[in-house]
């Protein structure tokens, strides 16, 4: 139950997050994901670098410290070796043939002393601690208690072995208390034939070792100290006083038992101790390095890495902001352009730049816009021509020229008292006009159109003095179909004016109406003079120049009227429909009008709307 709730919660949280992601802008998605990516990479690199670097730093500290301590050890060893060598030389010069009282020996010792300023004094004692000879010659203080001194003890304990004392204050002579390391050895020599135990003491100044050790610094606070391997006494320590006072502690036991390096902690500070034995004197050099200051490079690196991470973060956010805005900008631009189109500004255009997809999209958009603009232009043109044709059709309804000619004929007939003909003519005229007007409708029944044609033909027949005959044939089914009105009249006029008028014989005009499938076909055929192929081709050609050609070739503008009929039909019913001519010179011309077979006056209603 609980886990179910949890998963539901998690799911909800995830869902919300996902929703947020989905609803946030491309720009912010790109920006944040880029920044996050870069940050992760940089952090990873920083962590790896830090680890590597800190390891190296630690190793370097370890190595550096041990090298320094080793160096101190070597120096000390060399120094002690040198001193042992010196001791042997003194021993040879002084004790050969037990001739320490010799003047020559004194000279040699003088040379030795002057060449080595760190030899404080040379003294030879017998086994009771009585002075036999010393150099520089000075009385031994009675309070010195030679036989109680530690160097005397160690010389007497193991004879013929050179022993080094711990540094101590020399208290044999008046005047000075110098810190010395005593080299002593118990020897058995032949003096005037008798064996004799003597102790040769050479005191060397501790200053040299002190300086050697105090000069060493491991970092700012690090130091070197020396202990005696035997008892762990401190031979040298820069803060020896503090240790004696108890103000400072040095873990000598640890140094005594270990070799190499070890860590310890004093006052909460980690220290690296490096131990090296100086075998010839039995001392141990211990280097103490404070890790915190030796590791400052690591801290510096740490700080530097943090800086780098912060800077990279800032830069990455900046760059990703820039990138995101760069990527999102064309999309915004597109959006703004679309908005402009939405507001009705179709003249905008998207610039073709940016990434490939954006360019493609922009060009598609531009094409689409172009198409829309074309369509709109087309609509405007069509509307304009529709209106024009309607106006012209309206004008065709009352052709003043035709009316004038007809009325002239009527007057002539009245003069000839042809009453019968007058009645026919006037009746036809009135019917012609009635159908012509037909309550302002543009679409009328085929029967009415045929009626109109008949009246027109009747009037013309009378005007042209029976120069032609006419026939009207129509299928029954056609009569109730609808047609654009006044499509036949201009064609008939054309047939009379261009076909029949110049004919010597009597002409015939046939009007037909039939259905061809779903197509209504009206036909006007004459047996007049016909047309040349050139004229035929020019008849229905659109274009102003053609129009003018036709107009100049024909009289009375009937060519224009024929074109108008063709255009009107095409406008109303589409380009599939319209006029088609077949003509032969001296044979006649046939015009076919094709329109869709419309049985109900829907078009009319639509048109009226």
């Amino acid at each position, binding site marked *: 139950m609980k886990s179910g709730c949890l998963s539901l919660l998690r799911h909800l949280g995830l869902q919300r997050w996902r929703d947020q992601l989905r609803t946030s802008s491309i720009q912010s998605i790109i920006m944040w994901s880029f920044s996050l990516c870069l940050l992760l990479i940089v952090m990873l690199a920083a962590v790896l670098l830090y680890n590597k670097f800190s390891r190296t730093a630690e190793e370097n500290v370890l190595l550096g410290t041990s090298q320094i301590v080793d160096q101190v050890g070597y120096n000390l060893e060399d120094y002690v070796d040198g001193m042992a060598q010196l001791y042997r030389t003194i021993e040879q010069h002084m004790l050969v043939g037990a001739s320490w009282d010799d003047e020559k020996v004194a000279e040699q010792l003088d040379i030795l002393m002057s060449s080595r300023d760190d030899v404080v004094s040379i003294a030879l004692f017998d086994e009771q601690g009585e002075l036999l000879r010393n150099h520089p010659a000075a009385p031994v*203080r*009675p*309070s*010195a208690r030679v036989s109680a001194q530690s160097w005397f003890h160690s010389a007497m304990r193991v004879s013929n072995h050179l022993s080094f004392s*711990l540094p*101590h*204050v020399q*208290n044999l002579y*008046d*005047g*000075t*208390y*110098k*810190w010395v390391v005593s080299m002593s050895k118990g020897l058995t020599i032949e003096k005037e034939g008798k064996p004799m135990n003597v102790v040769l003491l050479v005191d060397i*100044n*501790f*200053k040299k070792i*002190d300086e050697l050790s105090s000069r060493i610094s491991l970092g*700012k*606070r690090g130091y070197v100290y020396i202990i005696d391997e035997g008892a762990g*006494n401190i031979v040298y320590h*820069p*803060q*020896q*006083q*503090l240790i*004696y*006072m108890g*103000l400072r502690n040095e873990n000598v036991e640890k140094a005594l038992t270990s070799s190499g390096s070890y860590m310890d902690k004093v006052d909460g500070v980690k220290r690296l101790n490096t131990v090296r034995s100086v075998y010839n004197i039995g001392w141990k050099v211990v280097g103490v390095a404070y890790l915190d200051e030796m590791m*400052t490079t690591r801290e*510096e690196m740490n*700080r*530097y890495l943090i*800086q*780098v991470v912060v*800077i990279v973060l*800032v*830069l990455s956010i*900046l760059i990703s*902001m*820039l990138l995101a*805005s760069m990527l999102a*900008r064309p999309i*915004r*631009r597109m959006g*703004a352009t679309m908005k*402009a189109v939405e507001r009705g*500004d179709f*003249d*905008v*255009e998207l610039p073709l730049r940016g990434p490939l997809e954006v360019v493609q999209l922009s060009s598609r958009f531009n094409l689409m816009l172009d198409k829309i603009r074309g369509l709109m232009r087309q609509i405007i043109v069509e509307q304009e021509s529709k209106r024009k044709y309607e106006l012209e059709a309206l004008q065709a309804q009352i052709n003043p020229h035709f009316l004038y000619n007809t009325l002239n004929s009527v007057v002539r007939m009245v003069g000839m008292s042809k009453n019968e003909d007058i009645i026919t003519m006037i009746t036809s005229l009135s019917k012609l006009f009635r159908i012509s007007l037909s309550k302002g409708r543009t679409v009328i029944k085929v029967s009415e159109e045929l009626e109109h044609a008949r009246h027109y033909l009747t009037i013309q027949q009378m005007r042209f003095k029976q120069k032609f005959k006419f026939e009207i044939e129509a299928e029954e089914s056609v009569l109730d179909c609808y047609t654009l009105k006044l499509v036949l009249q201009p064609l008939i006029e054309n047939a009379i004016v261009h076909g029949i008028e110049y004919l010597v014989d009597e002409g015939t005009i046939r009007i037909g109406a039939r259905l061809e499938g779903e197509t209504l076909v009206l036909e006007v055929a004459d047996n007049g003079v016909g047309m040349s192929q050139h004229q035929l081709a020019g008849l229905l050609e659109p274009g102003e120049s053609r129009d003018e050609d036709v107009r100049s070739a024909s009289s009375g503008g009937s060519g224009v009227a024929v074109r108008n009929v063709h255009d009107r039909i095409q406008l109303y019913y589409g380009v599939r429909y319209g006029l088609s001519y077949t003509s032969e010179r001296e044979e006649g011309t046939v015009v076919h009008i094709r329109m869709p077979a419309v049985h109900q006056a829907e078009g009319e209603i639509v048109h009226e709307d």
Partner: protein
Amino acid sequence: MKTSNREKCPHYRPWRRLTAVLMGGAIWITGLTGCLTSDIDSGKPEPPAHTIALIAPVHAGEQGDAMRLGAEAAAKEFGIQLQYASFKPNEDASEQLAAALRMVEEGSSAILIDPANEHVLEQLAAVASAKGVPVVALNDERLIKGVQSAITVDHVEAGRQAGEALAKLIDDKGTVAIMRSDRTDPDLDLREAGIRESFARHPSIRIAESASCGNLRDACWNAAKGMLDASPIDGAIALESGASLGLADEAKRRGEAGNLKIVAFGSQVEQLSLLQDGVIHQLVVQNDFSFGYIGLEQAVALLTGKETPGHPTMLGTKVVNADNMFWMNNQKLLFPFVQ
């Protein structure tokens, strides 16, 4: 077309401006990084190192040097620069004050001083506190105004130690004398009080007429001579090193070296030599190294705003004799310098 262009522009301009600002920021940060990087390359900038001045006591060369040694040890530990003013034997309080004031003038962050007298301390404290420089008094327990910290030895306890030592040397009975200083020093008064307090616990010890002398060995010899001439005594305590030397000289002159039990304060080489030879029997010594070390430690504490004890820090003293003076622990205390 034109109008639509003009409409478009305001949409994009803020973005461009923002981008420009951000780029500028980025360049600035990069520049900053460059600086920081160069900082790292050229090593950490040195922290403002404090300079602490140590004004040595007058008439006490070795004591001052031991203090210096301690102060140097502490200075190394705390990363402080130490300035040291020492004085020739013929220089006195006025030179010490002048040196101390010069150190304040030169911009020392703190002053450690073993004042020659109260006047020096007062003058210095007044000038230093006006400048906000803390003063730590060494070997002086007067926490006067302007002196933030003091380090001294427990003079009464030291006096007691000396008194007890002498009482033991003369087997709790006999006549003893005290060699005083001819100047008035509250520290010496405390020592004497301690001595007298300890003798009061030994009823068979009689305190003879005291003598007093200055820093000069010959003058003290004369004073000792006068004192010994006045009444025979079994033992004597010298409050100052000069007095102990004069007393020892007189004991040797009289051929009573060793018989006349001498207990003294100080750890001068002559005194130690006499101690080894058995002319002086016991020396009450203080650790001058500690003065320097603890003094500097407290000065650093004052500079870093840490708590310091409101009372003078009391250090212990040690009694050495010919037998234990060359013990490992005492050697470093008595002979701090490797020559």
